[in-house]
Structures are given as structure tokens and as C-alpha cells.
């Protein structure tokens, strides 16, 4: 009995010690749009959104190295550089924890990175827990992404669509009509970048819908995570599905990317469009977008594929 008590005591003590070391804090917030969790472990702060499959990792930042891209797919978003290597004006729909922003603003300090976020609490947590500060070059608009695209007349070099609510994308941000609105706000040589998730029925409908608007679409599969980044342009020539036509990315920012972003490895993430499945998939329109039933996300950015 004494031995059992000793073992139990040791187990409880070691569990407490582990908890004290591992979790600096875990906080939960219920907003009118999301159920959010902020967890700090050492210098790493993660922002998660609860959904029916548990918690989806929305974003993460290492406060000791804020330029580090902590969530794998944020590296793949930089594939936009192959299509528009001078992103002077970038619109990002979905702020998350601003995991993408810090490296981008370091590499392109003169560029405008406009974010649109629906949930004010996300911005507040970003500022108070994740060390993000909106600036004149990195403003944040608190509104619906589609409403912003309709009302703001700026021509963007990149439009990044990365809006999730607890693992699901709002249906009105997945339709042909919305993509046409985005295409209308892209500069002539601009690129539309969307974070998709493979392994879902929605994935093939997504690609079909993007292709209905943009004549050229190239996919990049984030290694081991199930994220697929679609890069789409609205011009026909040159043929951007051929890597030899991709832009030689500026060497001027190579020192910022060094150790944080390997563009050569990113090129290798290119994947073929699953044409047969895409052909069979249904086009998503404002009139028909059963996005919730096509399962937006089966992985949650954290686990292995």
C-alpha cells in the first residue's frame, strides 16, 4: 500500500511539474463568432478555435523569434511570390494570429498589408497576447471579408483568402460570385491565394469554383499537413502552370527569408490538379453552396496528415 501511495504521489508531483513547465497559461474566450483558446508554452503562443472536431490551430507565434513561420501553411502562402514577385498591396482576409504578417512586413516594409477580420476579439488577442501591432502599413479592418472586397476599390497585387470559423469557411466566401469580386479587385498581374484543405469533399468543389473564375490555377501542398494553397491569376499568358515562367524571386529579401522560408523547397510543393475529381465536383455559387456539408476541414493544422 505504501509503495502504491509513493507511486501515486510521484505521478501527481511529476504531472504538476510538467504542467508548470509546459503551460504558461491557457485561456479560453467565447466571442459572438468563435470559441477561442490561447495557449502559451514557453515563448510560443498558439491561437486555436474550437470546432466540432476539437480545436483547430488558427495561428502561432514564437515571441522570441516573431519572424519565424510557426504554422506550416503560412510558408506556402509565399508561393504568391512566384506569380507576383512585387507585392506592393496585399489584402489578407482572415487575420488569425497574424502568423504570416511579421515576416512579410520585414521582407517588404514599404508594402501595404491590409487585413480584414470579422471578430474583434481575434484582433484584441493578437495585440495583447501575440505581440501584433497594426500599423499604417499593416492596418486591420473589422468587418466581413466579402463586404470589404465589395466596398473597398483598391487594386491588390495579392489577395489571400484564409478565413475560417472554427475549422469551417463561411459559405459566402467560397462562391463563384465572390471569386469574381476578388478577381475584379486584383491588379492585372495580381495573384489570388487561397488556403484549402485536401481530404474533404469541399476541396474539389473549391478548385472547380476557383478555376471557373481564374484561367490559371496552381496548387501547392503543404508537406504533411493537408493544407493546399491555390494560387490563381486572371490572365492567360504567359502560362503560369509552367514553373519556368515563374518569377525569379527577389534576392533583395533573401537575407530576411534565410532559415525561415525556403523558396526552392516551396517550389517542390507544387501538386497536380486532381482533374477527374474536380470534373465530378459541383460548382459553388451564391445560389448553391452547401459548404458545411462538404466538410471544410478534416485536419486541424496540427496533426500529421
Amino acid at each position, binding site marked *: 500500500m505504501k509503495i502504491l501511495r509513493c507511486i501515486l504521489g510521484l505521478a501527481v508531483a511529476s504531472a504538476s511539474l510538467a504542467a508548470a513547465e509546459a503551460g504558461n497559461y491557457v485561456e479560453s474566450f467565447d466571442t459572438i463568432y468563435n470559441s477561442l483558446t490561447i495557449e502559451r508554452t514557453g515563448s510560443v503562443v498558439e491561437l486555436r478555435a474550437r470546432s466540432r472536431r476539437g480545436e483547430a490551430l488558427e495561428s502561432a507565434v514564437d515571441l522570441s523569434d516573431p519572424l519565424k513561420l510557426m504554422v506550416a501553411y503560412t510558408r506556402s502562402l509565399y508561393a504568391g511570390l512566384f506569380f507576383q514577385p512585387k507585392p506592393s498591396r496585399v489584402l489578407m482576409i482572415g487575420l488569425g494570429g497574424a502568423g504570416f504578417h511579421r515576416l512579410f512586413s520585414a521582407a517588404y516594409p514599404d508594402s501595404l498589408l491590409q487585413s480584414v477580420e470579422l471578430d474583434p476579439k481575434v484582433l484584441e488577442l493578437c495585440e495583447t497576447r501575440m505581440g501584433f501591432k497594426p500599423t499604417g502599413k499593416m492596418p486591420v479592418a473589422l468587418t466581413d471579408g466579402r463586404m470589404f472586397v465589395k*466596398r473597398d476599390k483598391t487594386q491588390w497585387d495579392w489577395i489571400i483568402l484564409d478565413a475560417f470559423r472554427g475549422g469551417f469557411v463561411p*459559405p459566402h466566401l467560397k462562391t463563384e*460570385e465572390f471569386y469574381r469580386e476578388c478577381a475584379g479587385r486584383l491588379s492585372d498581374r495580381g495573384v489570388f491565394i487561397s488556403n484549402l484543405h485536401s481530404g474533404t469533399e469541399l476541396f474539389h468543389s473549391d478548385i472547380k469554383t476557383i478555376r471557373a473564375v481564374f484561367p490559371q490555377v496552381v496548387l501547392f501542398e503543404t508537406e504533411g499537413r493537408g493544407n493546399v494553397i491555390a494560387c490563381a491569376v486572371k490572365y492567360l499568358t504567359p502560362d503560369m502552370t509552367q514553373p519556368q515562367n515563374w518569377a525569379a524571386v527577389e534576392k533583395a529579401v533573401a537575407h530576411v527569408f534565410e532559415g525561415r522560408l525556403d523558396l526552392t523547397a516551396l517550389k517542390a510543393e507544387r501538386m497536380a490538379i486532381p482533374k477527374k475529381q474536380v470534373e465530378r465536383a459541383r460548382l459553388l455559387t451564391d445560389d*448553391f453552396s452547401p459548404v458545411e*456539408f462538404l466538410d471544410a476541414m478534416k485536419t486541424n493544422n496540427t496533426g500529421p496528415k
Partner: protein
Amino acid sequence: MSLLVFYLVVVTLGILSMGFQMLGSRLLSPHFGSAIDVWACLISTFLAAFSIGSMAGGVISNLEGAARRRSQLICALAAVVSLAVTALFGRALVGQIEIAVTAVLPGVLASCLALFFVPVTALSTFSPQCVQFLAQRGTAPGKASGLVYGVSTLGNIAGVMLTTFVLIPHFRVSTLLYIWLAVAVLNLAALLRFLRTPTSL
């Protein structure tokens, strides 16, 4: 048998009302999103329509002869015409409201009032008349009220579940709005026939 058909008509009335709310959310979402503020306006509009429709229906059910028949016909026509307007011009109307009203909440409220308030109010006027119909045929008023609202609420549940889990995943919203219009025409025709029949069931 007639009583069974009567309750079927009441169930369908419930399906039409609450299923319409789910379709309404899909009409609004491309313009105003689908967040909780949009749902608050949508639900409030429907509840206001239920409330005003029920009160108006209570008044109509106590009118005499020709005045009652005329009021019933006006309500049925208002329901059909407004559903037709929503089916034919709903999306264009919301688009125009979105442009005209830049603030989000007033825009959502204006859209809800323009598209959903009249048809749901008109449909709701028939519930008290259904209670009166049963009461006049010997059912105790309290029991008649419980039966009609109980059966109608079952229809509401069926409307929400059927529309959400069966219809929206398989059909276009515009197609469903035309189906709603057709079902409303048939259901209201049957209801008017019941309400004008003096004989007992």
C-alpha cells in the same frame, strides 16, 4: 380523413414558415455574411411576423361572413405575392439594399423586412383561424389552441430540419424558393377551402 388533411395543412404551414427562415439566411449571406448578428435580425424579423400575424389572425377569425372571407383571401394573396417577389427578385433586392444602406445592421434589417416580413406575417394569420375552425366544430378552445400550435410547431421543426439537411445540400436556393411558392399556393388553397366549409369534419 378530412381532419387528417386539415392537420397536414397545418403542418405544412409550419414547414413553410421556418424552412423559409433557413432559405432566408442563404439569401442574406452573400451580402451580409452569416454571423450571429445576421441571425439575430433574421430570427427577430420572423418572430415579429409571427406575433403580428397571430394578432391579426385573431381579429380576422372573429369577423363575420363576407368580411372574414375577404380578409382570408387578402392574407392568402399577400402571402403568395410576397413569396413570388422573394423568389423572383429577392437576390436583386438584397443587392440593391446592400448598396443603398452601407451600415450592416440597418441593411440586414431592411432586407429581412423587405423579403421575409410580409409572407411570414400573412402565413401566420392562419394559425388563430385554424384554432377558431376547430373550436367552431366542437373542440374546446384550449384544446384547439394546443393542437393547432403543437402541430404547427412540429411543422416548424420539420421545416428547419428538412430544409437544412436535405434541401439546401441538394438544390439551389432559387429552385427552393419556387418550390416554396408552389407549396404555399396549394396549401393556402386547401386552407381557404377548409376555413369556408361550414360543415363539421
